[in-house]
Structures are given as C-alpha cells and as structure tokens.
C-alpha cells in the first residue's frame, strides 16, 4: 500500500506513484502528477533538504485533506525527499486522481504551490566552496497566495 504522505531520505520513484493511482478506480477519468527535481545551477554539487519532522507530515496531510474535499478527489499522494540530492534526482512527487481532468490538474497545482510555502522544508545548496541556504522566491509566495485567495473567494 502506497503511503499517502511520505517524507523520506530514500530516493523517490515517480512512475510507481503515478502507477498506484492509475487504473484503480472505474470512476476516475484523470490522473495528474507533478515531479520536482534538482535543477543544475552553477557550482551546485548537491541540494540538501532540511525539514521539521512531525510538523512537516502534519502540514502535508492538512493540505492533502483540503485538496481531497475541495476537488472531490479519488486519491492524492504527496511524497517529499529530504537530505542530500544530486542534479536530476526527484525532490517531490504530487499525484491526484479524480473523475475529471480539471479537478486532478487543479488539485496538483494547489498542492505543489501550497506545500512550497506551508510545509517546513528548507533547501541548502552545497558547492565546492561551501554552502548557502536558498531564499524564498516572491513568485512562490504569489502562487501560494493565489490558491489561498481562490479558496477564500469560493468559501465566501
């Protein structure tokens, strides 16, 4: 049984996650997914993800529950890697299944945009000369706020 929420130092397997949601429910017409991976940057040797154990899993579970009810999903899975990763390795996989594509696509967008700003993860870039923490991007904050506004509007 694939865990719905997983934070792990072990490598992730994106095709296995998508497969776990595919062809399992005759009411599903759509499976959508997002895979985030380490991008090459000048000097980057490894990317390290630190988190706050316990709080992270709770934050991801709360986002998942919100998505499940809001978009009437059949299933939703969030797996996030922590520790050190090389270029090309998978950082995060988000996948959702639903009767229709719009729900699955929107839910995946919501989950990845919100988890970037609402779950306690921090990225650190290791180079030959040392390391530095990645600073939060305004564009990520804006994407997260977009969903917050959407939900506030629809709940109003």
């Amino acid at each position, binding site marked *: 049984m694939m865990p719905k929420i997983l934070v792990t130092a072990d490598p992730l397997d994106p095709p296995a996650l998508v497969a776990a949601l595919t062809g399992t429910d005759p009411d599903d017409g759509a499976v959508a997914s997002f895979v985030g991976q380490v991008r090459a940057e000048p000097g980057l040797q490894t990317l390290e993800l630190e988190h706050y154990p316990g*709080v992270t899993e709770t934050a991801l579970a709360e986002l998942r529950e919100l998505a499940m009810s809001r978009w009437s999903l059949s299933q939703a899975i969030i797996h996030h890697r922590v520790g050190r990763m090389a270029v090309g390795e998978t950082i995060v996989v988000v996948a959702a299944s639903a009767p229709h594509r719009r729900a699955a696509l929107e839910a995946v967008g919501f989950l990845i945009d919100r988890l970037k700003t609402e779950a*306690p993860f*921090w990225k650190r870039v290791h180079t030959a000369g040392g390391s530095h923490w990645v600073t939060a991007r305004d564009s990520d904050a804006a994407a997260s706020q977009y969903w917050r506004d959407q939900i506030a509007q629809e709940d109003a």
Partner: protein
Amino acid sequence: MHVHIRYMAALRDRLGEGETTLDLPPDVSDSETLIAHLTASDAAAAALAAPEIRLIRNDRIVTRPSALEDGDRLAFCPPFTGG
C-alpha cells in the same frame, strides 16, 4: 517561565546556536516580547521580528504574535523553501 528554543535553517547559522533553553523574566508573555528579550542580549535576534519569520510552537505552526506558556517548545523558522 522556561521555554526551549530552536532556530531552523538559515536562522541557526545566523544566530550561532541550534537550540537553547531559557528562563524568561515575567514581562515576556508572547512571541514578540520574547524576540525583544532575545534581541537585548544578541542584536542578531532582531532578524526574528521580520513578519516572514514563522513560529512553530509545540509542533504546531502558529501565527504571530503567539502567547507563550511555561514549557513551550518553540522553533523560529525562515520562510519555507520546499518542493
């Protein structure tokens, strides 16, 4: 009142210590008066007052200002950068 404080990620590097337990004077009652108290002994702690700094209190992400109680486990967090 005693509280246990952790500094996460970039804040840990900036404030020079990962965690500490403090005995607080009576005028420290919430997260913001705590930050002022910390800043009095280390000017670098003024960075904690920035609105984007998040607070985890007893394993829950809380909004600031947050009231404090004896025995609280606090973690000051720079903006999250997962995903």
